[in-house]
């Protein structure tokens, strides 16, 4: 079995938003929609303060609440763990958005604007996907790249052509991607050698998104 997961090393992330920008540009998401973004969290009280940068997005849960609530079956889960949205089925009810504990989904109506107003630039026009308007959208783990890459025998997370854009472009090396079931793969090794957590595990979602915070094992 294959299960693709994302790993964010919080020790590395500097909050630069390169992943955010690369995702937006690569996936042609409209203004305001960010499938991948990095949160800038501050905790503590002056002068004992911490800031933590946390990449977030769809966690591709093993038990996705979005899938459970989706009335149209537009949200599905692939055998490799990737949670998808079939734009041709989705009715745009936003229920999945309410169900996602990770605030990972977006929906923009048909009136979505463009970077510079109501008219798309040529680049936006080349990217524009009418079918993604009025429906729920989210990070796909760049499933199209994974499928095209694996079809050519490439390994997601190792060969850039088969790897999500956010990972390819992450400048600090915070983001890693791969098949967690590959016991000798880089993602499994990374998680074996470092302490990590997953977010909102109490919800039983079994997210496919791990956050490393220190070396060693718990």
């Amino acid at each position, binding site marked *: 079995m294959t299960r693709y997961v994302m790993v964010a*090393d*919080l*020790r590395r992330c500097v909050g630069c938003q390169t992943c955010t920008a690369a995702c937006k540009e690569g996936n042609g998401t409209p203004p305001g929609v960010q499938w991948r973004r990095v*949160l800038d*969290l*501050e*905790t503590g009280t002056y002068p004992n303060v*911490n800031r*933590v940068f*946390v990449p*977030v997005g769809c966690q591709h849960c093993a038990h996705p*609440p979005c*899938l*459970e*609530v*989706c*009335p*149209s*079956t*537009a949200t599905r889960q692939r055998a490799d763990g990737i949670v998808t949205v079939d734009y041709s*089925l*989705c*009715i*745009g*009810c*936003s*229920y999945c*958005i*309410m*169900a*996602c*504990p*990770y*605030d990972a989904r977006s*929906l923009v*109506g*048909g009136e979505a604007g463009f970077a510079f107003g109501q008219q798309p630039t040529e680049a936006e026009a080349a990217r524009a996907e009418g079918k993604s*308007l*009025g*429906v*729920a959208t989210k990070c796909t783990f760049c499933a199209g790249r994974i499928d095209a890459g694996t079809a050519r025998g490439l390994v997601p997370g190792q060969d850039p052509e088969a790897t999500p854009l956010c990972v390819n472009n992450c400048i600090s090396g915070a983001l890693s991607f791969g098949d967690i079931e590959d016991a000798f793969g880089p993602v499994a090794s990374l998680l074996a050698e470092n*302490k990590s*957590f997953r*977010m*909102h595990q109490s*919800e039983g*979602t079994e997210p496919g998104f791990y*956050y*490393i*915070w*220190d*070396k060693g094992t718990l």
Partner: protein
Amino acid sequence: MNRSLASPHQRNWDLRAAGNFVFGGTGAGLIVTAALAAASGAPFRPALAIGLLSVMLGLSLVWLEIGKPWRALNVFFHPHTSWMTRESIVAGALIPVGLIAVALASPAAVLAAALPACGFLFCQAHILRAARGIPAWRQKEIVPFVLATGLAEGSGIYLLAGEQTLPWLALALFAGLLREGAWLAYRAGLAGTPGSARSLGIFDTPAGRLARGAQLVALVVIALAALLEGFPGISLLLACTGGALAALAGWGLKALLITRAAFTRPVAVPVIPVRGSGGDPLRR
């Protein structure tokens, strides 16, 4: 150690979506009340008609909200787990049966409609309960509250659309007290959930206080109407006022609950990442 950031409101369900819970809940409650009326020989036809119209109005409002209204029938595709599908299916049963009941003025048909009406209300409660991204909805006490308020709103409206006699005043009072209990339980549950302060705060805003005030006034006024049954004119006025307030109070609370109190789940980072050796220069 739980470190989190103030989370934003949900950005996708506005008053149109709230309208489904407002009018759908009231409608379902009214249909249930109409069924009780039919069973007891009281007038039920106007109440049933209004209830049905109310449910349909709520669903229409949702239809106006969704991104792909012309694909709305896809809503039926996922009954296995989706409470929204289930709500739609139940509504699909409720509306024709209810229309037949209105057309035939048949008490049996009204009783038949009451069942899906209960189901509709149940589904609505669980739609919210299953929304794991919104802690204020995720609260388990939201289910009895949605059920109780639907009944309180429906029985309240029945005082305007049906009879204002003692049994119906008693029903409205009972449903109102039920809702009051459910509301207190919901608030207590929410107060015990970390990170819910902002949601609770919304119910303490002027709008929240107004809705709560309306609910309490409704209870008092309905009780007075019952006590003053011997003075039909006054009792009628009080009953209608109390019934309307009971409905308005529920609408207000639900509108706040769906829109302004619906904060998304805060990000939780249980540990601070170790950036460098954190105090031991030679650790490596």
